[in-house]
């Protein structure tokens, strides 16, 4: 009998405003939780070729056996059909989401249907409340929505408040869901799916116990993990400067995409670096629930009111490497303040920071080349480094006053097909690129990873490891596949991928034991491959064709640490991936 495994699934039907709970122990026993369970639940519930922004789309939120049990197991996996790529959407977020869902008594929550009026849903352990959100709909800032819900909902400290901003309501295909103000279900448009269902927020709270099979062994393994997380150098990078440490690292490597990847370094990188922001703006560091690392870095901006002397507002802005890359380096930032102000606006609207930055970078270049005009841009003359214009432009992406903004609100794949400039539209596999122009593995990862996210297979890591000895395409694809399939295990447990070097296969196997789950290292690897297969089966079912993926010309123009990438190398990578995915899906 495995005591320490989640088993209950909460189903919420927004169309009929009803809910029910099912015992799905068999599903958790087979797939653990997180990614594995979410993929199966989505496959069960999502009709073939469902419209991503229609009522048939389904949102699955899943946690796993390590959540609320071990340190840095802080993430929730969301799965849905993405309105951005039109295919499998998967997005992970921390905050208190995972601990709250598990301690409310659930392994997963499935949200189906669509409400006719704006609602928010509050899950208080066994009870679910549908609440009227009409007064919250249309609010300018997602921060205000968070403030209101904090006041009216119970369970301070033990709850998650997942909400959308205006971008989600306006169905921008890269709208985020925000949780605990500074964490996001990002990238693939979960916010727009919430918006299409008229779901303004989902509040979940609870404080149950998680029984284990062997309490003594549980404490022992916990201590071993806790020491690795806190005392070993494995987490130092996230702990001190945080992820923005990468700005300097990648800039020195010439792998930091700048000005729409016209360059791979930035002259002013030292003015937007993690070290610089820490020295000049860092105001507080906070944590996700059950993670002692505290990688969430909040900058403080003190802004004067022009019309009122001696009147200031103080704003906290969460910053990480990726927003600095996209809203900083890609837009030619000269100093951090503009970047931080822009991040704040993007967050309050509930847009994805990475996609927004890449979209604006494209628009800036398209304008300079005359593909789009000032009137298309709502009267803005975008130029790299001009943050006053960028701050206005992000409002336009949400409010969509012109045809261009309506198209840009669907991402670059869509916009560039209509307006041209595809050769410098940095969207790969339907998703805007992450901040690593490190070499071929990064691009293979963006193109063929299940989420088209750099975290699928960490191609950027492999690139940095192999500078000067670029692997053959076949070897490169093999290594990315090994990495991505192992990560399926980690995101089924669900741990934060920042702790991937702590949660090695041996210790994962050991940590499952006190929970009553016996899995060898080989069993775990096999499970990872099985989940990978399930995800790609779903992707292929929904129309993903690896043979049809293309790369924008720009990536072959700007040198990487592996030299200038060649189209012939990348087309071999594509062949290898197409073969791999075919074999995996057909079970050969």
């Amino acid at each position, binding site marked *: 009998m495995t005591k*320490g495994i989640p088993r209950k699934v909460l189903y919420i039907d927004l169309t009929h405003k009803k809910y029910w709970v099912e015992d799905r122990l068999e599903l958790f026993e087979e797939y653990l939780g997180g990614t594995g369970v979410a993929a199966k639940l989505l496959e069960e519930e999502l009709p073939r070729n469902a419209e991503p922004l229609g009522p048939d789309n389904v949102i699955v939120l899943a946690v796993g056996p390590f959540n*609320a*049990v071990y*340190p840095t197991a802080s993430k929730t996996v969301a799965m849905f059909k993405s309105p951005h790529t039109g295919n499998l959407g998967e997005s992970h977020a921390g905050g208190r989401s995972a*601990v709250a869902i*598990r*301690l409310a008594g659930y392994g997963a929550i499935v949200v189906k249907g669509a409400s006719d009026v704006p609602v928010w849903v509050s899950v208080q352990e066994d009870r679910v409340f549908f609440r009227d959100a009409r007064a919250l709909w249309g609010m300018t800032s997602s921060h205000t929505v*968070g*403030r209101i819900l*904090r006041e009216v909902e119970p369970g*301070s*400290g*033990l709850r998650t408040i997942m909400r959308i901003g205006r971008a989600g309501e306006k169905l921008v295909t890269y709208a985020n869901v925000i949780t*605990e*103000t*500074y964490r996001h279900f990002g990238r693939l448009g979960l916010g727009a799916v919430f918006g299409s269902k008229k779901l303004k927020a989902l509040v979940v709270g609870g*404080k*149950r*116990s*998680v*029984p*284990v099979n062997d*309490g*003594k062994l*549980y*404490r022992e393994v*916990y201590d071993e993990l*806790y020491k690795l997380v*806190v005392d070993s150098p494995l987490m130092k990078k996230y702990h001190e400067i945080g992820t923005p440490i990468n700005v300097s690292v990648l800039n020195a490597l010439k792998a930091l995409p700048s000005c729409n990847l016209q360059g791979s370094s930035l002259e002013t990188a030292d003015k937007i670096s993690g070290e610089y922001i820490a020295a000049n703006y860092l*105001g*507080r*560091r*906070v*944590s*996700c*629930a*059950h*993670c*002692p*690392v*505290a990688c*969430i870095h*909040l900058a403080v901006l003190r802004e004067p009111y022009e019309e009122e002397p001696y009147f200031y507002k103080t704003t*906290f802005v969460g910053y990480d490497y990726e927003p600095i890359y996209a809203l900083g380096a890609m837009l030619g930032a000269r100093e951090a303040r503009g970047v931080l102000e822009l991040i704040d606006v993007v967050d309050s609207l509930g847009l994805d920071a990475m996609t927004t930055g890449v979209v604006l970078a494209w628009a800036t270049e398209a304008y300079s080349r005359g593909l789009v005009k000032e009137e298309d841009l709502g009267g803005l003359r975008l130029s790299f480094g001009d943050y006053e214009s960028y701050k206005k432009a992000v409002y336009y992406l949400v409010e969509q006053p012109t045809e261009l903004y309506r198209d840009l609100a669907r991402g670059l794949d869509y916009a560039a097909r209509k307006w041209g400039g595809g050769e410098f539209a940095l969207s790969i596999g339907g998703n805007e690129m992450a901040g690593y122009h490190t070499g071929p593995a990064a691009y293979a990862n963006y193109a063929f990873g299940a989420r088209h996210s750099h975290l699928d297979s960490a191609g950027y890591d492999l690139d940095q490891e192999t500078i000067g000895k670029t692997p053959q395409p076949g070897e490169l694809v093999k290594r990315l596949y090994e990495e991505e399939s192992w990560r399926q295990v980690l995101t089924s447990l669900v741990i934060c991928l920042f702790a991937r070097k702590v949660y090695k296969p041996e210790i994962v196997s050991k940590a499952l034991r006190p929970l009553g789950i016996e899995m060898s290292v080989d069993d775990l690897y096999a499970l990872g491959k099985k989940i990978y297969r399930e995800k790609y089966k779903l992707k292929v079912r929904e129309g993903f064709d690896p043979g049809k993926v293309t790369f924008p010309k720009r990536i072959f123009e700007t040198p990487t640490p592996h030299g200038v990438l060649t189209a012939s190398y990348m087309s071999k990578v594509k062949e290898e991936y197409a073969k791999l995915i075919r074999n995996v899906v057909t079970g050969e």
Partner: protein
Amino acid sequence: MARLVITDVNKCVGCMSCMFACSRRFGEGGLAKSAIHVSSIGGVERGYKVVVCRACEDPPCAAVCPADALVKRREGGVVLRYEKCIGCGNCARACPIGAVQWDLEDNKPIICVHCGYCVDYCPYGVLRLAGRG
């Protein structure tokens, strides 16, 4: 004798490791048995409050217990006599700082015993076990 104290609440990052540690004393995961409560003071950017028992010398929780289930500890605070407790909740309502948490699964108060197990799981030194001055 020792009691649990907060050194500098501004260093709290809200990781809840102390709360999980408190529950883990009973060999279980989750938070049902935690005598500590951490929550933001109105958005995480403003920081956190960390609510722990202050080990009062004249504890209001004991004063209102109708069942004599809370016995004063010599060094401050109280000890819960579990079998006497009727789960009325007077103690939780009487504590002005809200330091009596509630075990919803057992319907009993959760009383801090000032064992200091949590202290080892606060990497920022917010919690400390102090002698009584």
